[in-house]
């Protein structure tokens, strides 16, 4: 799957996107977020400490229980501030 990061998360994580395999046992957005924080706390603790994390799956806003498959693009970003 492809992960994308925007705004302050992109800066914190040092990249805008990366490829990874869908981890075994991860089937939803909330499970993916928990897996990221558990497996790479040195990178993701700061992301989750910086307020509510919004997610999109394949360019559509996602919820905690949105299902995932290995060919999905999952984006993590902070609340939007355009306009």
């Amino acid at each position, binding site marked *: 799957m492809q992960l*994308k990061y*925007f*705004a*302050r998360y*992109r800066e914190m994580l040092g990249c805008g996107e990366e490829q990874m395999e869908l981890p075994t046992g991860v089937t939803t957005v909330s499970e993916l977020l928990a897996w990221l924080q558990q497996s790479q706390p040195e990178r993701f603790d700061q992301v989750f400490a910086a307020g509510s994390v919004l997610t*999109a799956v394949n*360019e*559509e*806003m996602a919820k905690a229980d949105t299902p995932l498959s290995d060919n999905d693009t999952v*984006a993590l*970003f*902070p*609340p*939007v*501030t*355009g*306009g």
Partner: protein
Amino acid sequence: MEDASAELKSRAVPGADGALVTFTGLVRDNAAGNLQSLELEHYPGMTEKSLQRIANDALTRWTLGGISIIHRVGSLPVGSRIVFCGVLSAHRQAAFDACNYVMDHLKTDAPFWKKEIRSDGAEWVEKRVADDQARDRWEAG
């Protein structure tokens, strides 16, 4: 963006569209004179879809002759245009309301992020609760 209003007017149906309402947002200094520019980031692909959905929702809600939405990205100095929304309709009330609706939803739903570039540093802009409240009033009625 300079020609957006004229472009939308050219799409008006003579005799049918009696109102053209436009809104232009300018980069404002929230940092007490220290703001130099805003850096606007977006999510290419998803941002366009999000704006299209907001426009479609407005077209469903009101009888409109057309909608134009433009949002700039990248580095925008203080005072420059950041966003444009124009709406054509038979009557002004629908055009004003739809323009307001588009802007309220753009601010809360479309994936854009602002970073303030100030003389004393740079900082990402925090989301405002008032923006959520402005959007939610459209759902309450």
